């Protein structure tokens, strides 16, 4: 019998909120690796933002030891997966490191869009899937319905799915036994040429980049020179070991095992997820399949706010990039906002997380501009430009046509909301491909939609129209020609580049009007009239005016309460610091993000 027979490499897959992280916590606790007193809520989600939002962005991986009822000790490598559509590629690479997956289905909710999306990703990696029904401690659990949904929608036999409560620990032992039975042990040749999959990495200030890896063939130890097969870079291994969790050094890692490798690597981009590690002096013939370069889908400008130093922003972005291969940035100069950076993200959530970390971890005051997707601009001379910054859009006369990214959006919903979802998608230029009844009451809608329509607030709109019941999964499909125009915003007749957007021609009028109205609310009155205009090229399509003269006088200091008056003046002064000066017009910094929240009832 091989050592491989006592290893199980698995992931837990679930829809957001279905209890993945709680289950991981319970497993860690159960197998005694972390003392109960060290247990934080959701051990694996180690960023505050993740814990607050109940989502996992950065992976954690853990080696568990479990003595099964057959008396044997098993190594269970739990490989966590990020839980959001923005991180599909990362999810797929984590799954590729596994031999099976535990599918957690909330017994009170049933199957959701992401459940299905993640199951498909797991099936693509040829994984055995063990369904389990979670939240069985709740009165509202309906295991029979959930079981039926798993069978009808996913097509897995759920008759023996363990019923558990990750919260209370109920049914966890039975689940582990079942896991050992259902999920196959890894295969691989420890004496073959090294092939190790990078499924995650993070930067440690002492050790450099720490690579999480699954060894498929061969072995690796300290002192070896490794080569990244896709990037071609070589590094000397300084340490290998297991994640128990944390990093515990070991002599070597060999085929079938999961662990970490350090090699004085400076930034995570050099150890890209999906790349294959081999030995420089005895390389494998071909890398593992599935490697993709990180591709930013959404861009926005990040500028230091008034009083914030450009250098501080740069330092912070560099630090974030060291740990996030999917995040990139380059300097940008805006006439309105000065020097800043154009930043690329996997999606809107990724963007939110980064901007929030800038504020929280680095205590920075930044202005983020309207997010934009990448447009392919086909010029009349045949040249094709990638444009993600509206300011860089060439003059309309030079453009043959513009193409925008289209995504395939799958929405799963209880059937009573189909009508309102269809209206929503139609208003967002969605094109319905088909609709299917998964069960009598659950429907899946398949749409093709411009990514541009999804990135603003589509998810929020979807949730609010379905009382939170609908779920969304989307992925990039193709580029498609569209009638798009650049919408400029002028304040006091001066165009403000940071407020320009690229919009569909037919919506330009409504969008322009909406932005002008919003700005009218935000921009304080001046001693002169401030016209706010929306324009396409030279043509003004909407106009609002901030009337002149704001009365700004307090009549009395009652009973000599000078202190109160002073506090009011100090507050006013502090408020002014958060303003930006554009020529003679003063604009609050919120304006740049507030125009995003354009609730036009669509």
């Amino acid at each position, binding site marked *: 019998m091989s050592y491989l027979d006592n290893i199980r490499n698995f992931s837990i897959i679930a829809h957001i909120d279905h209890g993945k992280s709680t289950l991981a916590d319970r497993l860690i606790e159960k197998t005694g690796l972390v003392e109960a007193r060290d247990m934080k809520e959701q051990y694996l989600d180690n960023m505050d933002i993740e814990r607050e939002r109940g989502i996992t962005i950065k992976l954690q991986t853990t080696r568990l030891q479990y003595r099964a009822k057959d008396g044997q000790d098993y190594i269970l490598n739990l490989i966590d997966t990020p839980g959001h559509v923005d991180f599909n590629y990362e999810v797929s690479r984590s799954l590729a490191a596994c031999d099976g997956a535990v599918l957690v289905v909330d017994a009170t909710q049933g199957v959701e869009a992401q459940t299905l999306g993640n199951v498909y990703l797991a099936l693509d990696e040829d994984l055995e899937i063990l369904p389990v029904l979670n939240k069985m401690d709740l009165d509202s659990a309906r295991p029979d319905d959930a079981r039926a949904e798993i069978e009808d929608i996913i097509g897995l036999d759920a008759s023996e799915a363990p019923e558990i409560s990750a919260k209370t620990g109920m049914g966890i032992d039975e689940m582990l036994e079942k896991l050992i039975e259902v999920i196959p042990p890894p295969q691989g040749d420890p004496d073959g040429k090294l092939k190790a999959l990078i499924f995650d990495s993070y930067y440690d200030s002492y050790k450099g980049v720490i690579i999480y890896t699954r060894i498929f063939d061969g072995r690796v130890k300290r002192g070896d020179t490794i080569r990244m097969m896709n990037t071609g870079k070589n590094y000397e291994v300084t340490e290998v070991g297991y994640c128990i969790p944390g990093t515990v050094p070991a002599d070597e890692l060999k085929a079938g095992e999961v662990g970490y490798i350090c090699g004085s690597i400076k930034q995570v981009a050099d150890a890209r997820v999906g790349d294959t590690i081999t030995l420089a002096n005895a390389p494998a013939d071909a890398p593992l399949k599935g490697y993709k370069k990180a591709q930013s889908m959404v861009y926005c400008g990040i500028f230091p706010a008034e009083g914030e130093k450009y250098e501080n922003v740069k330092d912070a972005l560099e630090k974030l990039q060291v740990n996030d291969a999917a995040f990139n940035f380059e300097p940008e100069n805006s006439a309105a906002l000065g020097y800043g950076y154009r930043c690329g993200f996997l999606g809107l959530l990724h963007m939110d997380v980064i901007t929030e970390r800038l504020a929280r971890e680095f205590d920075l005051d930044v202005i983020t501009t309207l997010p934009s997707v990448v447009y392919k601009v086909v010029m009349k001379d045949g040249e094709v430009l990638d444009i993600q910054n509206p300011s860089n859009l060439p003059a309309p006369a030079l453009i043959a046509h513009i193409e925008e990214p289209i995504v395939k959006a799958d929405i799963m919903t209880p059937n009573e909301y189909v009508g309102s979802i269809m209206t929503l998608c139609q208003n967002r230029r969605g094109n319905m491909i088909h609709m299917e009844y998964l069960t009598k009451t659950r429907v899946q809608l398949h749409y093709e939609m411009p990514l541009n329509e999804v990135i603003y607030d589509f998810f929020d709109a979807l949730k609010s129209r379905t009382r939170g019941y609908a779920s969304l999964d989307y992925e990039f499909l193709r580029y498609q020609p569209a009638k798009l125009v650049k919408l400029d915003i002028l304040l006091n007749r001066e165009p403000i580049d940071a407020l320009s957007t690229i919009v569909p021609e037919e919506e330009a009028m409504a969008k322009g009007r909406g932005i002008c109205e919003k700005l009218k609310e935000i921009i304080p009155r001046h*001693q002169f009239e401030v016209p706010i205009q929306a324009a396409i090229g030279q043509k003004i399509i909407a106009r609002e005016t901030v009337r002149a003269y704001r*009365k700004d006088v307090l009549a009395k200091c009652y009973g000599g309460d000078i202190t109160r008056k002073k506090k009011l003046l100090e507050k006013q002064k502090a408020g002014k610091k958060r303003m930006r000066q554009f020529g003679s017009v003063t604009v609050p910094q919120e304006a740049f993000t507030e125009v995003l929240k354009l609730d036009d009832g669509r």
Partner: protein
Amino acid sequence: MTADNMDRKRGIYIHMPFCVQKCRYCAFLSFDAEGSPRKEYTDALEKEIRLRAELEKKNGTDKRIDTIYIGGGTPSVMDIASMSEMVKTLKNSFDVEPDAEFTLEANPATLGRKDGVMLAKLQAYKFMGVNRLSMGVQSMDNDRLHYLGRIHTAENVARDMDIIRRKGFGNVNLDLMFSVPGESGDDALSDLEKILAFAPEHISCYSLQIEEGTPFGEMAESGELTEVPDEEDRETYHRICRRLSEAGYEHYEISNFARKGEDPGAPSPYRSRHNSLYWNMDEYIGLGLGASGFVNGVRYKNTSDLEEYLSALDAGRLPLEEEHKNTAFDNISEAVFTGLRRREGVRYEDAVRAYIDTDDAGKKNLTSYADFRDCFWEIFAEAKEEAFGYAGKGLLTIDNDGLKLTEQGIDISNSIMSLFV
């Protein structure tokens, strides 16, 4: 301390937080007079007066009192007997100048229903030493008075003024409120004409401010009430300023106008001496619930909780809520923004003295006006460019002596003042 400061006198402000009925716009501290512990309150006030006076004597910082101002609320709803006791205690405890200005706020229709009662009440105030009355007229339109939640009518005002004059009060202020929802500029000017007919020595004019937490505040939020647009409000204000100037009043502070004396070139003798303390960085002792004071370089505020106020004094403690020892910058900053409320503006020298006279702010050898000017702009270097920007737009006058707001500048006085905090 400079010789100039030695001569400076103090004022006393006393707060009376009781009203017959709270007005719908009012965000100030007041309770229904009926059923409130008014007697306990004046008893507590007497204790506070004695405590304050003892403290000042002990510290050797007591000074002569040049002004007394009893405000509210509605001081005229207080029982004459207890008021009189309190004033006696005040005069026994502090060294009040014989010619001190002594103002009492009174609301129309609170001085008594019968003429005889009114005359007797006013006589009692005279005995106490009150020599200036400030009447909360607010409007001369009965519908608007009702809308504001005032308890009086225009007829009450006429009758009160008649009796006040008969009683020989020769220094009377009338408050006028404008920009009440639904009120036009013409309405406000017509109110003003009716007020001018009483030939008051002093007029206070201010626009209604809708405050949160008042009935008007709630009505504004629900859309039940539409505020007068800023443009109209400011136009009315400037019309009022013009009319009062024609009528021989001196516009000596943003919202205050004093009838000119015999020498029209000299400052009016009817300026409120007490309120001027606030704008000159002079000292005043605040007494009573929620009252503010500025004594020995410290700004303080009393508690606004009536129970706490009474129990603190019961226990022989001053009912302080906060105390703040002004820094040199606090002093100059306050000197500037309060000084800018005066039409004369603030002189560099006065502002800079408020700064360098503060403890360790450093004695500088400043003699010429240019020294003070340069020192001033050194302290406010950050504000200089914007201040001169306002000057360029005709909103602020900056000359060799100091700065003052123009009449247009008043409209945005807060923006300008906030440069200096």
